[in-house]
């Protein structure tokens, strides 16, 4: 059975008198233990899709089932619980708490979990071990390198044993060598059975996935299995033909617009 099942998802933002269709009829099935990359330009709707997949936002129309549970009609508290138990987030800018050490940062999701709270320390240690930072538990974020910070963030995403790992530009703030390390870690997690969905605009990054979804104007325009070489040579979506200043205000994009 599919872990994720999106059915004709629409998301409409109303900005003043205007309606912006960020998502316009998206259908998507993701099976267990898939490794999916979502690509697209700024304004293509990939961030909105990510937010809906991550239960941070609800679709205007359409249904979303995660692990067989209907998400699209849930309230804020129920969504919080779903995020807590089934989704692990990895962000571009790590989002670690500066005053907490690595272990405490990783424990964070478990303090909001009914079952995880009692074993949070052991599970956090285990998660840090998985990402290869067992010797850095007492370090604070400012004592860690960028790659190590992202590893801590990945450990935090994994600690509640989520159904899906959602990564939003996970290598956007890292140099290329460190990026490769992180991607190798994702590969490793994928091999051990983790379902991963990753948003990126870098083809180099996307080719690590086994399936690449391209988005444009709120729709999925291509959904191809990536034999990696084909993905590399696939034509990139054309750049928007408007000057930078006139582009729609970026919705949720961080880091360099791709160039």
């Amino acid at each position: 059975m599919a872990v994720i099942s999106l059915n004709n998802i629409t998301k409409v933002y109303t900005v003043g008198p205007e309606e912006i269709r960020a998502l316009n009829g998206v259908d998507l099935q993701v099976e267990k233990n898939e490794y999916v990359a979502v690509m697209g330009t700024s304004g293509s709707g990939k961030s909105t899709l990510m937010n809906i997949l991550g239960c941070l936002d609800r679709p205007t129309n359409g249904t979303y089932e995660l692990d067989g549970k209907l998400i699209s009609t849930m309230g804020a508290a129920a969504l919080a619980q779903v995020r807590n138990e089934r989704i692990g987030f990895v962000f571009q800018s790590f989002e670690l708490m500066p005053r907490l050490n690595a272990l405490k940062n990783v424990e964070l999701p478990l303090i909001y979990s009914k079952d995880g709270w009692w074993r949070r320390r052991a599970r956090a240690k285990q998660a840090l071990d998985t990402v290869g930072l067992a010797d850095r538990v007492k370090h604070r974020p400012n004592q860690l390198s960028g790659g190590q910070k992202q590893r801590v963030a990945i450990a935090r995403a994994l600690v509640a044993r989520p159904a899906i790992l959602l990564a939003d530009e996970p290598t956007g703030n890292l140099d290329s060598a460190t990026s490769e390390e992180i991607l190798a870690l994702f590969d490793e997690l994928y091999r051990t059975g983790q379902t991963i969905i990753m948003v990126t605009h870098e083809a180099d990054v996307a080719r690590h996935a086994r399936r690449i979804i391209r988005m444009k104007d709120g729709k999925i325009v291509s959904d191809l299995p990536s034999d990696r070489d084909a993905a590399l040579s696939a034509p990139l979506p054309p750049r928007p033909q408007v000057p930078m200043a006139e582009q729609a205000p970026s919705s949720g994009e961080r880091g360099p617009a791709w160039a």
Partner: protein
Amino acid sequence: MGVIRLPFVMLVLVYQSIVLALGQIWANKVRSTLTTIGIVIGIASVTAVVAVLTGLRSNVLSEFESFGTNKIFIFPDWRGARRANIPWQRIMFRPEHFDGLVEHCPSVAHLTRMNGLGGNNPVSYAGRIEPNPEIWGIEPSWHKIENRDVIMGRQFSLIDNEHARPVCIINTKTQEKLGLPKDPIGETIIVSKARYLVVGVIESKAQSSMFGENRTGVEVYLPFRTVRQNRPWGGMHVIAASKSPDVSEEAQAEIKFFLRKKRGIKPGEADTFGVEAVQQFVDQFRKISATVTMAATGVVGISLLVGGVGIMNIMLVSVSERTREIGLRKAVGARPSAILLQFLVEAIMLCFLGGLLGVLGGQGLTSAVAQIPDAHLEKAHIPGWALAMSFGFAGAVGLIFGMFPAIKAARLDPIEALRHE
């Protein structure tokens, strides 16, 4: 299962919030302390004012007590009787009206029947006459009510009264005026043509214009039944003492109830007697102290309000500073209620900190004030209820003024919050 675990989950959440809040306060030590200054000042002033009032009150009350704040006068109401045309027989007190009163009135400690001699009755010794003495027939419990020291000899005993013995107790003034020897015990004086043996000498009261007593200061006391034997129809009144000044009201009510029953006054009929306590001064003082407490509470209320606004302000700053943190917490699964609780607990903890510092400050002020000479404030102390009230108020301020920032935090959209710079 879920029902059983729910309280645990709540407890864990509260514990978690307290730990987080303490960490946050500790991380911003200076800011937190400065923020709470409004609360500190408010609580310090309220505890100090209450402490001073408490000291003053116990001082004044104990001063009143030396006059007898627990004393209650019971007398036949002749004036009211004349208005209501009640025959004098029904107004007059009989000694037996008061039998069993102490047993039936739990707030009454003692009671003494009092009988004057009536008219001018000189007292004389060896030819020296004192024409205008105060002469009273009293029961032995009088000593317990009046608390007047017996300097020589003894108090009246029950036997003196029961047997109506011809004995008397005089005060030092009488001893001096009549020219009695240094040790007058065993001497005989003549009161209203009869001879009485002096068995005791009591101290003379300091002349007190306050209660209009002791016109000449010459006092002679005889056993109640001794007087009664000679004047069986004489006018009598009664002095009772409540167990403490605080239960004086109850004691008066109990006495009225008892006497109405004993004297057969039907419901709806007016009392044929009066019951009054030396209490107007106490009442007046209590009113003043209540007014001062109210005024102080008002001032403190304002400073707590100001302090509360300070707390709200800093909490809003905190929410805005930690928007990304809130976004992250929400993303990893914190419910809105958990975020609400976290910020609410932080505000309450800040206020408790203020309350703690305030109480310490108040204690400091109180000890300082207690040192002032001649201010009679050495008894000033912060009573327990004031401590509880201080922390209660501080917590309430935190709850009220922390609510808005906490709701703001709880309502943040996680996507927006994570995008916040």
